[in-house]
């Protein structure tokens, strides 16, 4: 699948980049196209573009604060997950989200 996502934690120092890297690593390993934007201490990194959003099957939001520019994702399937889960269980998180989206598409 084609996945875009945003990670964002309170301080924006540790969980934000760790969750982003885990999701990218495991997403790639599972054979998905995945791009994760980090909203951390440096502001927005690896920004998701309108084209990325257009092409995405769903949007994964792993945040424990309100994210910036969520309105970009209006009309897309949005799945919210705990950021801590993405750091240590990124592969499970992605697998569950993909199954949920597939189930929805097959309805």
């Amino acid at each position: 699948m084609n996945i875009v996502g945003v990670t964002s934690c309170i301080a924006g120092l540790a969980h934000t980049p760790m969750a982003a890297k885990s999701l990218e690593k495991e997403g790639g390993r599972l054979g998905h196209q995945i791009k994760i934007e980090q909203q951390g201490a440096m502001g927005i990194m690896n920004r998701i573009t309108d084209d990325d959003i257009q092409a995405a099957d769903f949007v994964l939001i792993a945040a424990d604060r309100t994210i910036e520019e969520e309105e970009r994702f209006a009309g897309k399937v949005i799945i919210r997950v705990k950021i801590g889960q993405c750091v240590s269980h990124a592969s499970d998180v992605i697998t569950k989200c993909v199954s949920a989206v597939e189930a929805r598409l097959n309805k």
Partner: protein
Amino acid sequence: MLITRDNIFLNKTFRDKREIFCFLATHAVAQGWAEDANKIEADLWARENQYSTGFESQIAIPHAKTANVSHAGVIFIRLQNPIDWESLDDLPVQIIFGLLVPESGAKLLHLQIINSLASQIVDDEFRARLFAVNDEDELFQYMKSRIAIEEEV
């Protein structure tokens, strides 16, 4: 440099999180990153109490982004004996990355280095080396070699 040999401590002995936070705060003051160790300790607890900074694989990243810090700092500690940290996988923690960042005005380069370091921690090879290195010098050189700055900010 944000990462220096003076801020790497291998084979330290601490009994619990409290002793480590006290050490991180005291060291931050000794290095001139902050003036009041008590405030730094309180800042570390304030973040820690939101949810544990313990990850899996026996690594924790206690951190604070606070106005009580004037200069960013990274402190690396590898413990002789792992301690409890209420980590996600319930394993005791042996490696601690303490991160301190000013509330505002942090140098972009410092934030990039911290971002790069945190990203590396999910890499199996990087983690393995943190546990395997023999001395401070070796670890310092290795960490330096692995810092990658992405130029898209």
